[in-house]
């Protein structure tokens, strides 16, 4: 049951990315180019997603626990640190180079373009390398 619902959530997520144009790197790069031919589509995607999630989360959290689990798994880290900022900056640089963040990158693997597989393979390597870093390093 949990896998079925997770599959549905993944389908819904991917469909949202497609509707929003986020699976087209040209659209994403256009959003990140406010000094060129700016494409504001991503702003509408973010607004729709954040508003829906903000309202939905609050309704969901009225319950003590999720339907299929004992507790909600929420991030516990509170303070911003060097890792957060450096990580976000490196991610932003990669996003600006190719126009793919992790969701659209993974959603694109079935499209048959070999360079997308290169991207996703490199992404996996990068994530694995970062997970090997010692736990405390700012």
């Amino acid at each position, binding site marked *: 049951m949990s896998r079925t619902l997770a599959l549905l959530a993944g389908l819904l997520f*991917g*469909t949202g990315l497609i509707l929003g144009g986020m699976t087209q790197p040209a659209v994403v790069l256009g959003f990140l180019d406010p000094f060129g031919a700016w494409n504001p589509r991503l702003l509408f995607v973010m*607004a729709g997603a*954040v508003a829906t999630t903000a309202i939905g989360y609050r309704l969901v959290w009225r319950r003590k626990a999720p339907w299929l689990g004992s507790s909600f798994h929420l991030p516990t880290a509170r303070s911003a640190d060097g*890792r*957060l900022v450096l990580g*976000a900056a490196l991610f932003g640089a990669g996003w*600006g180079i190719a126009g793919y963040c992790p969701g659209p990158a993974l959603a694109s693997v079935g499209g048959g373009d070999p360079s997308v597989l290169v991207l996703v393979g490199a992404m996996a390597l*990068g994530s694995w390398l*970062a997970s090997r870093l010692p736990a405390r390093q700012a």
Partner: protein
Amino acid sequence: MSHEWFLSALGGVAIGASAVLLMAALGRIAGISGIAGSLLSGAEKGDRGWRVAFLGGLVGAPLLAWLVRGESGLGPPQVSWPWMAVAGLLVGFGTRLGGGCTSGHGVCGIARLSPRSLLATVVFMAVGAGTVFVIRHVLGGTSS
């Protein structure tokens, strides 16, 4: 153009609905880099099934779109494969180090009013825009 904006907002609502579903059903944040990254290292055995299923749905969405309307909605890459490799390394390393990506920080985190996520989102948006600015308007573009 306004038609595209409407579709984009609708797409955002679908992404939000997915995040709410995942929270309601499993109590999980819909952060793609975390869902996928934990499969590479970190996730325990009983914690893997839903992650694989979610990613299966994500990969299946373009196929569904293709079956429904005859086009997948996937756009062509804009840069050559060596750039794709560099971008992938940065995205994978950065999202793991920073604890999230556009979905985990940008959507779910901001919806939770998390200051960390708000800061991360401002940083990756600003650096992303700065990177595009340097590539397009200073260097004159990547040859693809």
